[in-house]
Every structure is written in structure tokens, then in C-alpha cells.
């Protein structure tokens, strides 16, 4: 993978005419000087409305119970779990880009890692909400945590849901730290460049008194690398653990050993799709064509293509294993997916996740921004459908035909999904407005190295 993008180094460097100062100006001014235009306000308003809808939906949920959703027996898990898995997946690309590519010295990452990390943080945060919403008695969610209590009871450690709690909270904390540590020097830059007292104070507070001393830089670098090292295994572990929520279960369609790698691949797949979904408008509206170059997009596209094939392998493997195992229930699940009531979803996701991405074999396609944007949306959609299918279609027809049923989403199901997307968008819009969407100091660092080579 590192290889595949190695020759791409050249054009992803900042243009030679840039100076340290100009880089700082370019990026810092996006936050400090540039006034928001109507597209931002439009997006902001829409996102805000969705977020409010999300809040209303949650209030109703807490008041009435999960019955407002379409869940039932046998399909006791619905959108809430699907959304959770989907968001967690999206969260993956950030850490992957920041941590793994950093360790692999993939310099082209510098222009996209900052907002990718932000994306990770917001996505994981939203994902973390869903399991709690999903509970029948959410006000007792803390019973899943090990804490001393007068009942002398502990969580039931064999349950993957308990492992989830740790996996996700760890992931959240680490990505937050990683993101924040990366931000500190830039926050200091903003503090120093800020004109109004208010901004100076706010940015100053979060800059933690960064003065750019050599000592600061030394500590910062080692800390940054350490966290990167910490984060790397998480990229693999988190979604593996999430996948165990299903793989541990004995439900045909859940009970499968391919799930951990299959889920991780899917996560990167959807994650990179989301990176593109975010990068392209960012680049467009903030005129960052020189920092986020076509080459960046192309690299992302290549990763998309690669992970897409991993996912496709997963699909294939499921079908093969079902028949190889000779398990009558597993085989029925495959039949049901191919021709059952949820077959349209299955075929749609195959089109979205396997068929469509194949256009990326062509360089033209990889460098066609509009097409990439549409494609990224298609993949995101496809991945959501995959999550839905795994959760619902496996459950709706399991062992006893007498208990077979269907899942029909209600308005509240959709509100929670769309609302969560809105909330995500809202957070991201605020992020690009108030924080440097591209790492200032790392670009400058890169410029420096580039000069050295030049000399």
C-alpha cells in the first residue's frame, strides 16, 4: 500500500513559491480573516435543523422506549446498531491516515490528516451515543461499566458488549488526544495571530501556553509519535471487537470468523469514502487546490479501490463458507439474502460497494473530482446498507420458521439516522470555521524538508 502511493510523493508537496509565513497565512486566515460565505451558513442551518430533530427523537425515545422504532422479536436490533457500526467504521480512516501513514512516513498525509482526525473524533463520538440510545433502560447504561456497588455485581465479562465499551472508549480517548496534541502548535499560532482579545483568550486557553521553544517541540514530537504508536493497533482492534458483537452470536449470518478483518476492511473503505466526501467540498469552498491536490484525491481513491476489493472478498467468503460448512441455516441465510425480502438491499449494496468503485481503475476517473465526490457518497450509502443487512436480514429469519418476521423502519428510525448525519455535519462545519482544517506546522515542516532536499 505504501508502495502504491510512493511515486505520488512529488506532486503532493506544497508549491515551491510558498514560504513558511505564506503557509501560516493561507491556513490561519481561513479561520481568522475569511468571513463565512452563504454556502457555509446554508449548510450550518440544515445541519442545525437535523441536529435538533435528533435531539427531539432522543427525547421521545427516552420517554416512550425503543418501541418507537421498528424493532421487534425476532429483529431486536435495528437501525441503532446499524448506525453505530457504520459511524465507527467511518471513524477509522482518520486514525489510519494520521497514525499509520505517519509511521509509514507518507508525507502526502499532512494536508488531509487534520480534518480526517476531526472526522474520526466526531464519527466515533456519534457512534458512541447509539448503543446507549439502543438500550431499553438507557438510564442504567453505567451497569455495563465495572465499578464497585452495593449490589456487589460486575459486568458479565463474556459479553462482547462489555468489550465494546472498552474498545470504543479507548478509541475515543486516544483519537481525541492525538487530534488535540496535533492542534496545540497551531492553536498557539492562531492565538498569536488573533486580533481580538476574545479569540486570543480562547485559543490561548487551549494552546496550553505553547511558546514554540525547542523543548516544547521535542516533547511534542515524541508525544505525537507515541500516541501514533498507541493509535495504530486500535485501527485494527476497535472494529474487530465491534465485529465480535455479531461473530460471537450463534445467529446464522452473524456467526462467522471472517467478520473481524471483513469489518476492518469495510471500516477503512467507508472511512476513506467519507474523507473524500469531506475533502472535496473543503478544497472547493476554501480554494485549497494547491494544498489538497488532485494527487491526494487520487491516493485516497486508490485506497478506496483496494479496500473495496477486501470487502468484496468478505462477501464472497460469506457465501462460500455457508455452503462449504453445509450448515442448513447458514445456507438459508445466503438464499434469503440473494432472493429473500431484503434481496434488493443486498444487490444494491453489491452495486455500490463492488461494482461502482471499479471505475477507479482508470486514472481519468481517479482525477475527476465531481465523479469522486459522487462515488464517495455511493460508497457511504452502500456501506450503510451493508450494516443494515448484516444486522437485520440475519435476524429476521433464523432457526424456527414459526418466529420469522420482518423489520419495517419507522419515521423515528429515519430521524435518528438523518439526525446523526446532521449532527456530524454540524460539528464538522464548526471545526472548519474555528480551527485550522489543515495542519499548519506540519505543512511548514514539510516545506522545510523540501527546501533541504532542494539545497
Amino acid at each position, binding site marked *: 500500500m505504501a508502495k502504491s502511493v510512493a511515486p505520488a510523493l512529488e506532486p503532493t508537496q506544497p508549491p515551491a513559491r510558498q514560504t513558511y509565513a505564506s503557509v501560516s497565512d493561507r491556513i490561519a486566515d481561513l479561520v481568522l480573516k475569511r468571513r463565512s460565505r452563504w454556502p457555509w451558513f446554508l449548510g450550518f442551518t440544515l445541519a442545525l435543523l437535523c441536529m435538533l430533530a435528533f435531539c427531539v427523537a432522543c427525547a421521545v425515545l427516552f420517554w416512550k422506549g425503543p*418501541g418507537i422504532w421498528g424493532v421487534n*422479536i*425476532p429483529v*431486536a436490533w435495528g437501525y441503532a446498531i446499524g448506525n453505530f457500526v457504520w459511524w465507527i467504521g467511518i471513524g477509522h480512516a482518520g486514525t489510519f491516515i494520521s497514525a499509520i501513514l505517519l509511521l509509514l512516513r507518507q508525507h502526502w498525509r499532512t494536508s488531509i490528516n487534520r480534518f480526517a482526525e476531526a472526522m474520526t473524533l466526531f464519527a466515533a463520538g456519534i457512534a458512541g451515543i447509539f448503543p446507549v440510545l439502543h438500550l431499553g433502560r438507557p438510564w*442504567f447504561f453505567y451497569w455495563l461499566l465495572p465499578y464497585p456497588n452495593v449490589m456487589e*455485581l460486575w459486568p458479565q465479562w463474556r459479553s462482547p458488549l462489555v468489550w465494546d465499551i472498552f474498545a470504543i472508549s479507548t478509541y475515543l480517548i486516544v483519537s481525541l488526544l492525538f487530534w488535540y496534541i496535533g492542534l496545540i502548535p497551531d492553536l498557539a499560532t492562531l492565538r498569536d495571530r488573533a486580533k481580538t482579545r476574545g479569540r486570543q483568550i480562547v485559543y490561548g486557553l487551549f494552546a496550553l501556553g505553547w511558546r514554540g521553544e525547542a523543548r516544547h517541540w521535542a516533547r511534542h514530537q515524541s508525544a505525537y509519535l507515541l500516541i501514533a504508536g498507541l493509535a495504530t493497533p486500535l485501527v485494527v482492534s476497535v472494529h474487530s471487537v465491534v465485529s465480535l458483537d455479531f461473530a460471537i*452470536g450463534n445467529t446464522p449470518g452473524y456467526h462467522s470468523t471472517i467478520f473481524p478483518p471483513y469489518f476492518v476492511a469495510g471500516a477503512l473503505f467507508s472511512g476513506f469514502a467519507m474523507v473524500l466526501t469531506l475533502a472535496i467540498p473543503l478544497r472547493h469552498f476554501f480554494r485549497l487546490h494547491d494544498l489538497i491536490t488532485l494527487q491526494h484525491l487520487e491516493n485516497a481513491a486508490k485506497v478506496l479501490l483496494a479496500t473495496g476489493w477486501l470487502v468484496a472478498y468478505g462477501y464472497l467468503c460469506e457465501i462460500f463458507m455457508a455452503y462449504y460448512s453445509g450448515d442448513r441455516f447458514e445456507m438459508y441465510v445466503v438464499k434469503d439474502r440473494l432472493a429473500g425480502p431484503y434481496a434488493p438491499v443486498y444487490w444494491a449494496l453489491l452495486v455500490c460497494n463492488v461494482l461502482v468503485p471499479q471505475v477507479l481503475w482508470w486514472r481519468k476517473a481517479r482525477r475527476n473530482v465531481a465523479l469522486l465526490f459522487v462515488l464517495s457518497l455511493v460508497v457511504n450509502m452502500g456501506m450503510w446498507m451493508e450494516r443494515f443487512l448484516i444486522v437485520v436480514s440475519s*435476524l429476521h429469519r433464523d432457526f424456527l*420458521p*414459526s418466529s420469522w418476521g420482518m423489520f419495517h423502519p419507522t419515521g423515528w428510525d429515519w430521524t435518528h439516522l438523518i439526525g446523526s448525519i446532521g449532527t456530524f455535519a454540524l460539528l464538522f462545519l464548526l471545526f472548519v470555521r474555528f480551527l485550522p482544517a489543515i495542519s499548519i506546522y506540519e505543512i511548514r515542516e514539510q516545506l522545510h524538508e523540501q527546501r533541504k532536499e532542494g539545497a
Partner: protein
Amino acid sequence: MHDRKYDAGADDLDAFAQERRRVLKLMAAAAAMAGGACSGPPPEKIVPYVDTPEQSLPGKPLFYATATRLSGYGTGVLVEANEGRPTKVEGNPLHPASLGATDVFSQAAVLQLWDPARSQTPLRDGRVATWDEFLLDTENGLRELDASRGDGLFVLTGAVCSPTLQSQLEALHSRYPGMRWHQYDPLHRDNELRGSELAFGRAVDTRYSFDRARVVLSLDADVVSAAPHSVRYAHDLASLRRPHADRMSRLYALESFPGLIGARADHRVALPPADIERFAFRLGRDLGVAPAVVGDSPAPSFEKALVDDLLAAGAAALVLPGPAMPPRVHALVHAINHRLGGQGQTFEHTPPVAFKPVANVESIRTLADAMRAGRVRMLVILEGNPVYDAPADLEFAARLRTVARSVHLSAYADETSAYCRWHLPRVHEFEQWSDVRAFDGTASIVQPIIAPLYGGHSAHELLNVLLRSGAAAHDTVRGVWQRTFGNTDQDERWRTALRDGVIANTRAAAVTLAPELAESIFSNPPPPVDLAINFVADQSVRDGEFANNAWLQELPRSMSKLTWDNAAYVSPSTAARLKIASGDEVELRRAGRTVRAGVWVLPNHADDCVTVPLGYGRTRAGPVGDGIGFDAYRLRTLDAPWHGSVELIRTGAQRLLVTTQHHSRMEGRDLVRTATLAQFARNPQFATDEEIEKVPEHTLYPDRPYDGYKWGMAIDLNACIGCNACTIACQAENNIPVVGKEQVLRGREMHWIRVDRYFHDHDSGVDFQPVPCMHCEHAPCEEVCPVGATVHDSQGLNVQVYNRCVGTRFCSNNCPYKVRRFNFLQYVDRTQESLKALRNPDVTVRERGVMEKCSYCIQRIQRGRIEAERLGRKLRDGEVVTACQAACPAQAISFGDLNDPGSAVRAAKASPRNYALLAELNTRPRTTYLARVINPRPDDTEE
């Protein structure tokens, strides 16, 4: 916490439970927001009696013997009272119609009792009035009658099987010779009555002994379903269905609407009513009791096998005529049975158990005529709802309006009440003194368990008013029996009667008769109809009497698994012919009357025939029963009480019909395993002879030792008749909420034990499989619960700890049997006080967001266990009986300690038929099944 049950009314455990939880919930929310200060749960009261009643021991239930009524006939029951609150009904082992089991109606009787929609006050012309006003008004009426010696006094009842009521009616008649007494019950037995008159020249009842019948033919006679004798007959029938090479009976069934007996039959043919009648004629000819008839057999091979078997069995053979079969078929069947020679063995005749039975349709017609002629001065309706269920062409409502002084005694202010001058609330069976005879004549005393909740009076009290006697119901009843008992040890016999729930030697004595058939009755065989209509009692609401009972409404009908509705049932091929599908709305037309109904396509239904269950489309049943389904009575006319021809037209609209089982086939999975008796003899291990069907011997899981008790259950699929008694008994015992049509539609019904129904792919066979929690030893649910809310206990029970459950629903996903139920919303009614009083104080009431499931009635296990330990001994087999097991008429369920070598369940599991559902998953279920063995004629099963 039991202390809380000290006072029935004053404070209720749920009330506090719900209150407390609500407070906690709010606090959790508040804390999450502000960590703000909240107050703890409110302090709670203990309210002791002022004058402690003797023999009451708070915390311990008392059982009273009494009887419930169905179409006037009684079934003996034991009513469990907790601090005076009737909460559960069990069968009375001493009573011939019960033998310890119950039907769904007896189980639902407690909900009927506590139903807040019951009429609570007398109404005069629909306005609230008082009992005294009624007395005053009636007194005036009686004065007029005194003058006319009773001319113009009309009394309407159903079948009268209460000796006390009988004597009161006699007294009334002697006081008012001009009085006219009419009887009407929509589920009348006119055909049976007329048939016996045709055969013997007199009215007789016929009792069957299925435990002696080797070959049984049912002519559309579903004797094990929804009739006063069903429980007993189901029990007897099951006793000869155990697979023994020499002692297993063979069942033949002809039916239009697939019934329970048809589902159990070894040979079954579905025919429209007219063809069944024609078949009966042919059979009569074959057995030489009827003249030759034209036309060929509707079921040749069936007929041949049947005739051979009947003749072979001789006196051990029995033919049953269905209540809907016309009188001449009843007469013919009498002749056949006598020809076969079973009198005194498989059946016997007795004088009618009911007092002066009359043909109901005729009786209500004459009443209607009298009303039209204006001869009715005072009409007293002691029971029934004629405005709703009288033959449609009588225009009963219109006639009734013209009656000057009409009185209607009923539990609900129903359709009839609305047309009467006076409506009087009738007390529930559990609130009154009375007596009643069972189908075989055995009498029981009906004693009150609780004082009338809403005032109200019994039929006896009302008649006492008409008789101007101030006697209380108790004295009246006691007085009647005083005569029977004689003066020797009077009180002793009375007390015994009350304690046992049956009165010794009151069973009707048999009479020996010989039938004589007039040739003439076989002339003009029934004309074939293009599309026949077939009226049947609904399995849950019967004639509409139970329409407001939510338990029964939500109880899936055995065959269609429909809830909360009736439907026009048609066979698949007829549906294809008429181009209709389930859910389509159709208009049914006959005799210029129309009704719009939803269609349900039902496999095994007879072709060219539409079955319409009665009892729906109520308008004044109460909040639960109003406005659901369609009113089939509107098509039911004098000339066609059960069958007739009908037109069916699609309206293009749709009706929403909800079922609890969406898939009816087994998909080739060996869930219910069946063999013929011959195959069973050859290979007793047939249920587990394939590797996949065995419980794996080797496992990675450690085997847990169970040194104490080791509870297990075995369900005999051969005995189960699919009557649903277990489901509703469980609902009553375990405080299981009703969720309503809309939630059932979403697939959220809460029944802890469901009865799965599978239609066969190739023949017309049906399988029933009751599915409670399997209490797996390797329970998949336990591994995935993050908070340990479902765990194994040392007795091997898979217990669900409601107060620990947070509702991830992972356990349900991981349960291969899908027996877990989830409170998706707040299903339990927190506000209705009377429903709180109904609940079992020994079972936690679950709130929303909590998973629940069958617990093997752990509250009963614990009670028995604590009791035994107090006496310093172990529990004995049969001391702990689960609710489903107790209710089952066919004794299909055995439950007990697997460590007890003598236990019944251990014996059951030792049977070669014993198998575990989905054994290959290695869940090691504690609940296992005994495979089904059917007994068809060998020649046509050997392929």
C-alpha cells in the same frame, strides 16, 4: 415485600413499584443533566386489618372451589385468592368436566371479573338509576301481572342448568300461570335436540367415552374445542392417543373449517357442509341403517377405509355428529352408533341435563312474534344479548323497543341493554351464590370468592324480586339443596359440597334406548350450493360473550394464528377461484343482507365454503371489544342457523389482519418429528436416529453438577391438541401484559409459551408445538448479556433477573428458539386500579425496556421449596406444577425434578420419542419434546 400484599385494596405492590421506578428514572435524568438533588422513594404504609379474619394468613393464597359457566353448563374450578383477590383459576380435579384442567375461558374469567368496563350501575332508559327505583318500578309491573295472573310476563334465558334457577322459574310459573319462558343461546343445540327426538321420539343428551373408543369419526364435530365438555373429552381422547401398538385409537375427521380434532385426526377430509351431510347418508347406507342414495362419494378412499375400520371396531367405534349438522344427520348417527353397538360402552343416553330444553330458534321466534303482537307486558332477559345475536330476520331490536317494561340483566351494558327500559348489572360468577350442572349432570355449588366489586345482582336475586321473596341468594340456593340433602347431616353435606366443588351422586343416570328412523327423513338430500357459508363460534370470544376480554382477543386462534379479529376463511383453491387473497375486503351477501369482511386464506379449509366466526363487530361490548372484526350474525337468519349459501364480492379495499405466525411451513427442518404407528414399532428411535438430531456427546463447555433439584419439562406432541389453554394460563399466572393489535402487528406479542402451528407441505396434516423457554444448560442468552441479567441458577433454571436487565436485547438475538419477549413500550397498565388487583403478587411486574421469558413458574417452585424446607423434607414429584401444565386438558406437559428417579418427567424423557429441538446447536435444552406418532390405516401409508 410480601408484607405489601397485606391489604388488598389500600396499597398495591405495582402502584409502589411503578411509582418508585418513575421517580428513579426522573432522578437519573436529572442527575445526568445537573447531578441535582432528588428525593428518595416515598415512605410506604402497612395497613393491618381492624378485625383479623380467621384462616386468612397474609402472604398465603387460599383456594376456593366453585364453577364457571359456558352456554349454561358448568365446569368445576378452584379459584386462587390472594388476600381476598381472585387472581388465578385452576381446574378442579374432582369435577368430571375439568379433572384438574381448564379451558381458555375459565382462565380468562379473572380478567372478566376485574374488567373495569363491566356495568357498574342500573340504567333506566340509558340513564343512571338505582336498584330501589327498579324495585319500585317492577312492583308496579307485578301488580298489573297479579291482576292478569301473569299474562304478558315473558322470561328469556339460555339453557338452564342451575337447579336453583329451575326451582325459581317453576315457582314463578306457579305464581303466574300466564308467564311464558323462552330460551335462546346463539350457540344452541337445536339440531342435537331435534335429532334425538327424530331417533327416539324424546329429547336426550348423549355422553361419549372416548377412553373406550378405538375408532372415532367426527362429522364436523370439534368436540375438544370451546364447548362445556371440551376439556373432559380432550382428556379422554388423549388417553388413547399414546402410541401403543394395541391400544391406540384411530381418528377420522370430516370438517369444513379446520378444527382441533381434525388437526389430530389420522385421516382427515375437508368438505363443504352439504357434502359432509351427503357423506353421512352414504355411511348410513354402507352400514345398512339408511336407504341407498344417489350420487358418488365425496371421499371414496376415505369412505372405504373408514367403513372397514368402523365395522372391525364394532362396539368400540364411535361416530360424532357436529352441532351444525341437521337433525336428520343426528338421528342417522344415533342409528349408526346403535348399529355398531357401542351403547353403554362408547356412548350412553341420559335425560337432558338442562331444564326443559327447547329448540332455541323456534323459541326466540315465538317471543319475537309475541312482541310484534304486543302481548308482552313485561320481558325479563336473565342472560344473553338477543339484540346482537338473535336471527337477523327477526328484527329483534325493533320488536324489543315496543315492549313497555323490559329488564335486561347482564355483566355489560350491551346492545340489548340499550333497547331495554331497565339494564341491571349482573354479578360475576366469582361474586355470587348459585349452582350449576356440568355436561354430564354433576352439580356444583357456585360460591362467591369476593364481594361484588360494582354492586350488581345475580339471576337468583332478580327472580326473588319477581317472586316478592326477600330471601338472599345464599339462602335460596341452600334451601334448594336442603331438599336434596334431606335433614340428616345437612350442614356436613353442604360443607363437603362447598369444599369439593362437586355434589356427590348428581351425575345424570343413563337410559337405554333404541332408535327408530322414519325412511322419509332421507328423502331429498341437500342441494349442492355454489358457495356455502359456515357459521362457527369464535375460538376466543365464542358467541361474543368474551369480546371485551383482552387476553382472549390477543390469544392467537389455533389454526390461523390471527389475533384481535375474525375473518372470512376460505381455502387456497377457492381463493384462487374467486381471485381473492388474505387481507382483501369482501362483501358477503345472503338473503338481501350484506356484511363486509376481511378474507383469510386458510390451508386445510374446505373448498367452495366460507367460514365466518361469530362474536365480532360488537358495538357495545366495551372499549376492548367494540368495532373490531365483522358481525356475522347479520347474515344468520332463521332458516340458516349454521349453513346456507352466500355470495362473495371483492370490494377492492383491504382489511388489516394481524397474525403471530407469518410462516406456516417447516422448511424441511425437523422441528416436529412424526412417524406412523407402524414406523414407530419398527424404529422406536425414529426421532433421534439421524446424527444431526442427537445432542452432541462431546462438548467444550464444562458440565455443571446439579446436586439439589434439576428441573426439566417434557411436552408430548402426540397429546397436544393446540387449544392454547397453556398460553393463557401462563398469561394469568405471570402477569403478562396485553399489547394490542398494532403492537402484535409489529411482532411484539408477549406470550411466554406460544403454540407454533405448521401445515404440512404434502398432505393436509397439521402440527402443533408449544414453545416455552427451553432452559438450555448451555444457554446462548447467558453468554451475551453484558450485565448478567440472565443467568443459570443451581437448580438448572435459566433465570431472567428483571431488575438487572438494561435491555440490550442481545439475549433475544442469540436465542435460537426466540422465546424471549421484550417490553418495547410501557405495556403494563400503571393506572387501572382493578387491573392491579388482578395481578399475581408473587411475580414481578415488568416495566418497559426489560426482557422477560418463561421462568418455569419459578414463584411456584420457590413457594413449594420453602414450604418443604419448613417441613424439613425435599419436594415430592407433582408438588410443583407449572401454570401451563396444570391447565393442559390433554396432559401433554410434564414437569419435575430430573434428579428424582421416580418423577413423571424423568419417565417421559426416558421415552424413545424424546428429542431436543435444534439439538445440533448443543444448547442442551431442559425442555424436550416427545415426537408425534399417528395411527393411519397401514395399507394406505405404506408407500
